[in-house]
């Protein structure tokens, strides 16, 4: 049969009473109780020196896979079929759906920084191509390319929330196009997610191939 400590002895263990404050008949029980809690081992526990490296190795992997997931989300094909021969009313509806999808894409939260990228939405003669650049410190980002005669003002990117991601969606004709991002009106940046080619003037341009099946970087 177990015998619990007297409530006053428990107060002693809690530090609310001293041994001298206990009634004489409880002092032996109190002394025993103090031996019990006096047996605790308060030696500091020091973990392996390698723990920091192990944690950081996992953290780096998780950070990379998070970026990959965000990247996959951005680059996953989302087809929007625009049927050019439809009657005007249906055509307007299709456009509204396309605009809605584009809006959703733009408003979706970017949980981690993502590299620049593009996604596609297919149409019969042109394709909506979404361009994305992660530039958290930028004040202005534009897209210039062969499709807009390298006009710095023709295709500004919009900031997607406060995540540092800038995006724009353009309808590009079928064919191959060279492009680059222009940050703050002066810094030309090739798409980090696409292979770049030398433009013959010391700059690097990215390439995108647009077909009726979609768009892909070259």
């Amino acid at each position, binding site marked *: 049969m177990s015998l619990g400590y007297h409530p006053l002895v428990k107060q002693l263990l809690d530090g609310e009473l001293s041994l001298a404050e206990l009634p004489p008949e409880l002092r032996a029980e109190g002394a025993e109780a103090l031996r019990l809690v006096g047996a605790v081992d308060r030696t500091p526990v020091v973990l392996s020196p390698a723990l*920091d490296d192990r944690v950081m190795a996992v953290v780096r992997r998780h950070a990379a896979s998070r970026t990959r997931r965000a990247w996959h989300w951005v680059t996953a094909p989302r087809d929007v079929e625009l049927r050019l021969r439809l009657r005007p009313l249906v055509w307007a509806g299709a456009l509204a759906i396309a605009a809605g999808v584009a809006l959703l894409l733009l408003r979706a939260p970017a949980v981690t920084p993502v590299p620049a990228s593009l996604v596609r939405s297919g149409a019969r003669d042109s394709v909506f191509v979404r361009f994305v650049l992660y530039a*958290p410190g930028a004040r202005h980002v534009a897209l210039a390319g062969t499709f807009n005669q390298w006009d710095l003002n023709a295709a500004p990117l919009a900031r997607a929330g406060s995540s540092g991601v800038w995006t724009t969606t353009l309808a590009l004709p079928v064919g191959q196009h060279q492009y680059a991002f222009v940050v703050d009106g002066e810094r030309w940046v090739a798409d980090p997610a696409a292979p770049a080619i030398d433009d013959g003037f010391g700059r690097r341009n990215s390439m995108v191939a647009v077909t009726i099946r979609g768009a892909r970087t070259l």
Partner: protein
Amino acid sequence: MGLAGDATDSEVVRAVLGGEVERYAVLVHRYRDRYARYAARMLGSLDAGEDAVQDALVRAFDRLADCREPDKFAGWLFLILRNRCYAERRRRQREGRPLDERDDAVAAADRPDGTFEQTERMRALERSLTHLTPEQREVFVLKHIEGLAYDEIAGRTGATVASLKMRMHRAYDRLRDLMKEHL
């Protein structure tokens, strides 16, 4: 912002969330040992405690965006570690593997300055702690090993002082029963 080691938790958390993943090493280094004793005592083994701390630090990184008060990162990390310890105990119970009461990594080592009787009592207490409920064990560890007051334990765990005292007083009775040959 100061040097990495001088930066506040809040500054480091914001930097990591801003994409500076390597800055997380500051928090890892800062907190790796702070809760190690708690984890080791809760799980009855140094190895299990180390696994729990490692896992908690990784989980904290994964959920860092949920840390609403970055200046209270330490308390937030403790809650993650605490959940991890409770989950580990539940998992072991499901698998029929109770805490290892033989584990000598946490149990008192032989002390040149201690008597045989004291050392035996220390080991007996470590073994006895494994027989408490997780809640009783936690309040005992936090009060008598970590040296926290009831109101501090309440602040960390979210329990009321009254319920903590009730758990502790039951733990005293249970420990007295388990330790009767050593007192």
